[in-house]
């Protein structure tokens, strides 16, 4: 007797649960299509334009962030190191190499949702292209660690995973069609714990 209402209820549960669940999952998993991925670094140069795909538009409406315009800059986010393992605040990492051409760049550590970590007013929580110490061939090596390091130190103080955000300001990378070979710094784990 209750067969038909039960079947209708089952169909509705699958429809609403699946529909809402998959939409939320899709918006959490990615910012949209059209990403540039160089090693672990991912950027979305077209998320802010009118021709952005529906997922990008839904994501930016939900996140409510002020995005960079094409002439302003491009923010690359890395959630993993070069081997693909999640960045963990218990470990130390070396970010080394060179960046794509840009007038200026900044690097800071952020929580996985993108808000900047502020480990304390006295600690170097961010580095930019003016303050970084370079080798003779203009390469740099930045030590990301919760323990003080010599040379370039990016302090993190947080348990769990984190993200690295490298923002290139006034860069031709944003309009790149992939024809230029872009080189981003490598992220290599140097050790874990307080050793």
């Amino acid at each position, binding site marked *: 007797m209750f067969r038909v209402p039960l079947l209708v209820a089952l169909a509705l549960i699958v429809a609403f649960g699946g529909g809402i669940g998959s*939409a939320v999952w899709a918006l959490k998993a990615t910012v949209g299509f059209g990403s540039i991925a160089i090693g672990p670094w991912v950027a979305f140069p077209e998320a802010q334009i009118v021709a952005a795909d529906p997922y990008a538009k839904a994501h930016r409406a939900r996140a409510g962030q002020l995005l960079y315009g094409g002439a302003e800059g491009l923010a690359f986010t890395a959630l993993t190191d070069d081997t693909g393992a999640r960045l963990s605040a218990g470990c130390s990492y070396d970010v080394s190499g060179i960046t794509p051409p840009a007038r200026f760049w900044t690097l800071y550590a952020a929580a996985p949702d993108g808000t900047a970590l502020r480990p304390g007013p006295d600690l170097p929580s961010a580095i930019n292209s003016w303050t970084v110490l370079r080798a003779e061939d203009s390469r740099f090596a930045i030590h990301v660690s919760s323990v003080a390091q010599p040379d370039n130190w990016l302090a993190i103080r947080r348990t769990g995973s984190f993200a690295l955000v490298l923002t290139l300001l006034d860069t031709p990378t944003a309009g790149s069609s992939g024809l230029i070979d872009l080189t981003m710094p490598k992220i290599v784990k140097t050790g874990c714990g307080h050793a």
Partner: protein
Amino acid sequence: MRSIFFAILVGLVGAALLHIVIILTLPQFTGRDAYTRVLGLLEMDSFFPLTAEPGPTGLNNADPFLRTAVCSFSVADAPARFVGRGAVPFWSLAIFDSGSNEVFSMNDQTAVNGDLDLVVATPIQLVELRKSPPEALAQSIMIEMKDEEGYAVLRALAPVDSFEELVRTFLAESRCEPFQR
């Protein structure tokens, strides 16, 4: 057994439809998109400098070296004009419409003499301005915006702490106002 299978199949089709509907309509009803947040600052026609910590509207300086100011404006009655002058190492401006789509963006190297002087107008206002260009707008960059409402984001760079004062003055003295001839 077959009818349960059929019910699940119908449910999956419904789920796919609902997924598409949610993704397409979400921008209209989130209530926390960037434009709504900028409007929540309750200050039109002037640049509002953001702080390092998220304010009541949830907007903040995301990058530790970039100081950001936002301004919501409307070109329904008159064109909007953006003016800024100052020797900061880098500044950039982006204009977004009410759907948070980028309309225009520029930085100090794409500006005339490195100074910010920009007029945003509707297509009709732009025709008027082109027909009889006012003296004051001889150096201005003019751009067209189809949407009547929007917001501007002005960013200035303070690479080291000693630039802080300079950058704060630059943002405070930058103007975002309706243009009256």
